[in-house]
């Protein structure tokens, strides 16, 4: 019975059950992306000896998170209140935003498919993957005080 009531209320509210707090969830994914980029950067900068298995693991993490973060349920209209740095342009230019997310998905997936075997290859892959961060944040994020 309780399950039924829960299901009915979820339906009534029209929310996806998996994202109770889309803002917190997408921010968590963004932070995880940053962590993975940081881990990869340690190899590029030569702070750690190249470790192909870990590099692949980090790229896979980025690719998995790119899938998750492009779920429209994470970006409900009007979820840029409070301390959210989501720009209204996300909804004003929904097609442009989706295209940016799709590019991030494609670039991370191809990085996993062609896993780098050395630092030089990783540099190229990181450049391709990392350029998505700035290009999307250029249009779709607003810094707040």
């Amino acid at each position, binding site marked *: 019975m309780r399950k039924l009531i829960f299901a009915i209320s979820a339906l009534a509210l029209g929310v996806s059950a998996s994202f109770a707090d889309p803002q917190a969830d997408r921010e968590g994914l963004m932070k995880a992306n940053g962590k993975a980029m940081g881990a990869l950067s340690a190899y590029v900068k030569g702070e750690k000896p190249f470790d192909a298995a870990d590099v692949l693991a980090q790229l896979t993490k980025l690719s998995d998170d790119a899938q998750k973060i492009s779920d429209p349920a994470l970006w409900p209209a009007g979820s840029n209140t409070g301390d959210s740095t989501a720009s209204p342009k996300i909804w004003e230019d929904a097609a442009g935003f989706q295209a940016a997310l799709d590019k991030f998905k494609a670039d991370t997936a191809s990085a996993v498919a062609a896993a780098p075997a050395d630092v030089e290859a990783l540099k190229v892959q990181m450049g391709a993957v990392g350029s998505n961060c700035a290009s999307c944040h250029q249009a779709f994020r607003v810094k707040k*005080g």
Partner: protein
Amino acid sequence: MLGGIGAAVFWLLTEPRRLDEATIAGLGAGDAARGERIFWAGGCTSCHARPGAEGDTRLELAGGMKLKTPFGTFVPPNISPDPKDGIGNWSAGDFANAMMRGVAPDGSHLYPSLPYTSYARMNPADVADLYAFMKTLPTVAGSAPDHELSFPFNVRRGLGLWKLLFLSDQPVVALPADAPENVALGRYLVEGPGHCGECHTPRDLIGGTDKSRWLSGAVAAEGDGIVPNITSGEGGIDSWSESDIAAYLETGFTPDFDSVGGAMVEVQHNMAKLRAEDREAIAAYLKTVPAHPNGYPARTPPAG
């Protein structure tokens, strides 16, 4: 009668002031190869390329972007070497007067949306080099639309008063005579061609930068949001090392691997084209500027 005197005083005070003859005569032909560095330091293409330009089209300085500010909409003009629609017919002196004094070849004032308040601190030789480089860029025909400003901001002559208050070729941050060379270079790049203070410093009611809160961050002049505090004050970048700052300018990633965003994305692309020692110098200077708390108001906490 009094009105007549007032008008005469206004006319005298607002007279456009060009560079002196000796400075103009000393500009020389300029060196295009050296000028490319100044071009990227100045970020000319970020405002003067067509909106949304990428790759090599960023070197086509057709103008046309719309900068929507509280004073109205500014539209950067065509500054390609086109003789009719661009600046191809300008002399080096015309170019230096525009850059360093905000005076157009016809003697009228230019709006400070062209950040001559920063460029006034540039070395004239760098301005000459920059102009030599810009002459090598593609010629683009077509004029950008005019600025859209309302009264009193649409009275160009009035800018003469504004310049008396805000146009100075003196450095903002005083450095001791024995300051390291790279700090002095960083000061030059940040306060001069880089014009960082134009966005990172709060402005007063008539649009002048508040030097007592230099680089402390500001409400963005264009659009929503803020421009961050880049001093070591609270809310600023005290926790960033010099190499963190230099790496950010090169790669666009912060020390905790957040990425550059907003208008800074364009700036960072430009900074990445400088020499490593230029980015290091900027970092060294930023670590020496006086610390200030954030130059923008704290966000109102949500109700309840």
